[in-house]
């Protein structure tokens, strides 16, 4: 069948370890790609998706070898082709976009030269033609200063821009096949939209075929025509995007979808058992300001958080949301005493705590426990699990010897791991298991409050979802309160009792989950909710029409001392008020607060307006002929 662009037939790839043993990575994978089609390879880490995608370029990472099967690009088997022929194909017929743009560009060569290099070397274009085409691509990708950006060096542009420049580099030579390897995974949610939109547009315009590798089903729903679901080097299910998303067949696919994205709407949040409810808040933060360094006038040189007021009730889960740099981690650190606050108080069960943990009492330290994001670095690689879990028991409770072993086994059981793990070392565990141990260590101290700093952000979706289930179970059984910090709204919304929304160091909205997720919203909350990709085809197009997107994405985050920090991105900002005056806190029911100069009525009205605009678009869309998605 020669009209297929790429035919992968029973591909097998293995790794060889130091003892020369073969470890199969890809165990017989077959799929096809037609010209102009976007095929998504979905899977978690270890599924082999990157390895498979690289094989279409006749490339394997050092240490891996292709041991069987065929990869036919335009009918030609690239695996058995001569090395020189393989080199000709790379960059010309098939081009690669890596996950990390920073690692892709040579810091010593200008961007323009690197973007046009491949096209010129393969004889597809002359240097002038290539440069001209590059600038056209920069325009199409909505990069700033498209005529001059080519003369810059990689370190002079931002991460999101580099990501798009990578796309320009891949497309310059007009390849038949594009391989995109998790290109938006490392980006913030609001940046991700921008980049996704640019990619989709440019892929359509070039009529290129693409392999899109990712673990995020919602992202894939926006851009793929055909989906291949991978697990451990084998295909679990494949079919058209519509079918897989709306009607998944394989149990693994279903699991994946459950784990990835429940839409953050009202009606989520779990029930708190009555037996754990108490009058006194577990931990409270009042008028807290914190930052780093020493500035003039005694305050911090760089202020991260301003005037924070948060209350965590007993056995409640409080989710703290924000994007990178908003100060959410700093909040947890101040609570834990890792960073003393410059102003304000941290109050534990009615008692005010000293800012620096060195000044706090042992019982105070024991009651607030901090769980780190990266379990890899949070566990000492030279200590056994038993030692790691046993130390808090010794240190806080004076338990040792046989009683300690017993308790360690109990704790392991609580986090659903077998008791024999106590003799293992961290490097023998998987990411999810390490994170459980991380939490188990905090549990061992028998705390009142556990501060979880992005504990699922580095984990695969299914693994992370399991950790969240564990969290909820622990809360129900032990009555521990949780502060759950994350940048992922849907994860937090699915199980938190209250949500705190942080932007540029200030609380812009907080309250019970249900309340926060129903209108009226703070404009930033609105933007966040809209930015989370839904597991729905066509979501991207709808979202781009909302005016928040147009205004909100283009600007960066500004940390301001005066007025509202969201002003420069807010579609409803009022000059003279929002950027100059201190922001009032509007109170709604049940402790729901919004910090905005606009009144509640105005915010409600804005919501109504947006809906009307959307309906207008939908009507217009039905009337005009839209280009169908998929070949």
């Amino acid at each position, binding site marked *: 069948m020669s009209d297929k662009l790429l035919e992968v037939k029973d591909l097998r790839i293995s790794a060889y370890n130091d*003892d020369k043993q073969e470890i199969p990575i890809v165990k017989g994978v077959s799929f096809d790609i037609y010209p102009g089609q976007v095929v998504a390879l979905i899977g978690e880490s270890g599924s082999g998706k990157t390895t498979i995608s690289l094989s279409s370029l006749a490339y394997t990472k050092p240490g891996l070898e292709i041991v069987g099967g065929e990869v036919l690009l335009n009918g030609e088997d690239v695996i058995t082709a001569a090395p020189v022929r393989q080199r000709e194909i790379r960059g010309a017929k098939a081009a690669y976009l890596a996950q990390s743009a920073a690692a892709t560009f040579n810091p010593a060569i200008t961007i323009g030269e690197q973007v046009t290099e491949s096209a010129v070397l393969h004889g597809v274009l002359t240097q002038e033609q290539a440069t001209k085409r590059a600038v056209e691509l920069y325009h199409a990708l909505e990069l700033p200063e498209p005529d001059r950006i080519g003369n810059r060096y990689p370190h002079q542009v931002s991460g999101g821009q580099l990501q798009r420049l990578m796309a320009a580099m891949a497309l310059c030579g007009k390849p038949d096949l594009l391989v995109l390897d998790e290109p938006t995974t490392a980006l913030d949610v609001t940046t991700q939209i921008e980049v996704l939109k640019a990619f989709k547009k440019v892929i359509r315009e070039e009529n290129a075929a693409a392999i899109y590798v990712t673990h995020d089903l919602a992202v894939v729903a926006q851009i793929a025509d055909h989906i291949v679901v991978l697990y451990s080097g084998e295909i679990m299910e494949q079919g058209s995007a519509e079918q897989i998303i709306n009607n998944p067949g394989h149990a693994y696919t279903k699991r994946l979808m459950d784990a990835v994205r429940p839409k953050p709407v009202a009606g989520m949040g779990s029930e708190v058992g009555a037996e754990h409810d108490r009058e006194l808040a577990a931990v409270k933060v009042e008028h807290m300001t914190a930052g780093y360094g020493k500035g003039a006038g005694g305050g911090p040189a760089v202020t991260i958080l301003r005037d924070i007021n948060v209350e965590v009730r007993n056995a409640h889960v409080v989710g703290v949301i924000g994007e990178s740099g908003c100060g959410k981690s700093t909040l947890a650190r101040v609570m834990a005493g890792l960073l003393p606050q410059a102003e304000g108080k941290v109050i534990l069960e009615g008692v005010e705590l000293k800012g620096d943990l060195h000044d706090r009492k042992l019982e105070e330290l024991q009651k607030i426990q901090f769980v780190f994001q990266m379990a890899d670095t949070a566990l000492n690689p030279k200590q056994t699990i038993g030692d790691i879990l046993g130390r808090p028991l010794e240190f806080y409770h004076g338990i040792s010897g046989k009683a300690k072993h017993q308790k360690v086994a109990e704790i392991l059981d609580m986090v659903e791991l077998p008791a024999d793990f106590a003799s293992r070392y961290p490097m023998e565990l998987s990411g999810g298991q390490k994170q459980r141990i991380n939490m188990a260590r905090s549990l061992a101290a028998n705390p009142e409050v556990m501060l979880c700093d992005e504990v699922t952000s580095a984990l695969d979706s299914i693994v992370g979802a399991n950790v969240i289930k564990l969290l909820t179970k622990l809360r129900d059984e032990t009555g521990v309160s949780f502060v759950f910090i994350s940048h992922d709204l849907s994860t937090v919304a699915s199980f938190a009792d209250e949500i705190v929304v942080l932007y540029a160091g200030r609380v812009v909205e907080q309250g019970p989950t249900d309340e926060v997720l129903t209108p009226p919203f703070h404009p930033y909350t609105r933007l966040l909710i809209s930015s989370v990709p839904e597991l729905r085809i066509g979501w991207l197009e709808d979202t781009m029409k909302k005016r928040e997107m147009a205004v909100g994405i283009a600007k960066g985050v500004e940390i301001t001392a005066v007025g509202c920090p969201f002003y420069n991105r807010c579609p409803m900002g009022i000059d003279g008020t929002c950027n100059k005056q201190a922001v009032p806190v509007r109170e709604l029911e049940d402790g729901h607060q919004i910090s905005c100069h606009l009144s509640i009525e105005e915010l409600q009205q804005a919501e109504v307006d947006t809906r009307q605009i959307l309906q207008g678009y939908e009507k217009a869309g039905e009337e005009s002929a839209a280009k169908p998605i998929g070949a």
Partner: protein
Amino acid sequence: MTEINTTKEQEVLAKLDTFDELPDAPPKRRIKLTWVGKVSVAVVVFWLIIVVIGPYIAPFHEMDIEGDDGFLDAYSGEYGTFYLGTDYLGRDTFSRVLFGARNTIGISLLSTLLAYVMGITLGILAAVKGGWIDMIISRINDAILALPTIMLGLIVIAALGSSIPILIGTAAVIYATSVFRIARALGQDIMVQDFVEAAKARGEGIWWIIRAEVLPNAAMPLATDFGLRLVFVVLFISSLSFLGLGVQPPASDWGSMVRENLAGLTYGSYAAIWPALSIATFTIAVNLIVDDISAKSGGSLAKKMV
């Protein structure tokens, strides 16, 4: 129509439910030596044994002038067999080499150990405490490091004399500077790890953190460095001896022996070669072991280029 692979469905689900996940990294292999490494280990062990038993198995005492004359080739005479001939005074080269192992290797080992104790203590201290303690020690360290080692050794020895304790002390101080740098860098790297912060958050004291968190993680890299450092010290001390500033005659030390017998080369005597060769076998072997242990596995990109 979607294609569904149902054969593995139950298995996959079972794995997901029991959190049977693969470890992130394959288990580290134990230290594996190639044949080169193994031979080197044998050589090093051999010399270490000689350091201990050398004087007891030597046919002659190091200072005995029993040979008929100086610079003779191997021969058997009325006093015994001179396996490697005699040196410039008529002493048995073979015996002196055996005796010399103690001085050359023994002194070097002591110096290196001392350098390590000093360097690690100060280095970890500087890394953990930081602040002005770190700055002062680092500046002094940099100044000493800024000087060529032989030059420094030369001056100090010339000033203070070349007794064995001074020799050990000088070498120790000079090479402690490199150990300091490495220990400090390691210490700093480890101190910023999350698990150290977790320990601090727990309320652990600084000594516990050093003992239980920092040192176990610094042990392996430091151990590898020990081999490299030992070689440098051996070269340093034997070079000083060669210049006449190290171990003084009539004690036997491989570096001094080369110096004493150098003139014999023109007469065709190999008396200077044997001690030099001994040094070489020892230091090359140690370096080969270190090289072997630190060999990186995995492919390289160079092969992928066309």
